[in-house]
């Protein structure tokens, strides 16, 4: 189990090779990476300059550990790696990676999606979008909460 909150860029190939070290049982790795996107041009005239990502040190790690333990209680997993960047991020920069290693792929797919769904609603990160026109804190998305809630009925 590894959790990193960091300013610097990450390398997925490196994360995966660290994760697999001395784990010959790993048959499947599923990774999710989320990126900074510009505003939707169809409904927006402004242009994203950068994003500032703030978090609550201590609580972030606690929350992510809990999400991970929850995932491990639901699925048989070999290991999990969660990395989230903070600070100033530019359009198309990677923000977050969730990498799950398991013996069989179904567990890895489900656990990876579960972890990012809960991270989105429970881990104390906040994004501020600095555009060429204004500076606004991103509002939370109803669909993220619906996606999280959907895990109760699966």
């Amino acid at each position, binding site marked *: 189990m590894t959790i990193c909150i960091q300013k610097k860029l990450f390398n997925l190939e490196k994360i995966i090779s660290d994760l697999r070290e001395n784990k010959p049982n790993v048959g499947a790795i599923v990774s999710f990476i989320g990126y900074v996107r510009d505003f939707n041009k169809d409904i927006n005239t402004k242009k994203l300059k950068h994003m500032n990502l703030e978090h609550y040190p201590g609580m972030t790690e606690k929350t992510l550990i809990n999400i991970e333990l929850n995932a491990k209680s639901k699925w048989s997993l070999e290991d999990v790696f969660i990395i989230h960047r903070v600070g100033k991020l530019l359009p198309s920069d990677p923000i977050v990676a969730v990498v799950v290693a398991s013996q069989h792929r179904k567990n890895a797919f489900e656990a990876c999606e579960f972890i990012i769904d809960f991270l989105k609603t429970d*881990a104390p990160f906040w994004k501020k979008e600095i555009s060429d026109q204004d500076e606004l804190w991103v509002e939370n998305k109803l669909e993220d909460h619906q996606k999280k809630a959907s895990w109760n009925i699966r």
Partner: protein
Amino acid sequence: MIRSRKMKINILFFAGIREMFGIHEKCIEIKESKTSPEKLLKFLSEKEQGPWVELLNSKDSISVAINQEISNWDDSLKDGDELAFFPPITGG
């Protein structure tokens, strides 16, 4: 008569709320009778006014955490607790 003792609470502000207060952290000393985030917030908005009033007004859309765990507005506070106010989470 038992005199209510004082307790220290370390308050943290994040994101838009941090900007509203202009500070990230504030340590306060209060009487033990203000033992929930809700009571404390009401007390401070009456006593100190300013952003506390604004925070109280937007109470329904903000989250509160005690010792780094999401809590309810009527949960108990005790001496030495870390209390955090923050807007909805938007990570990932």
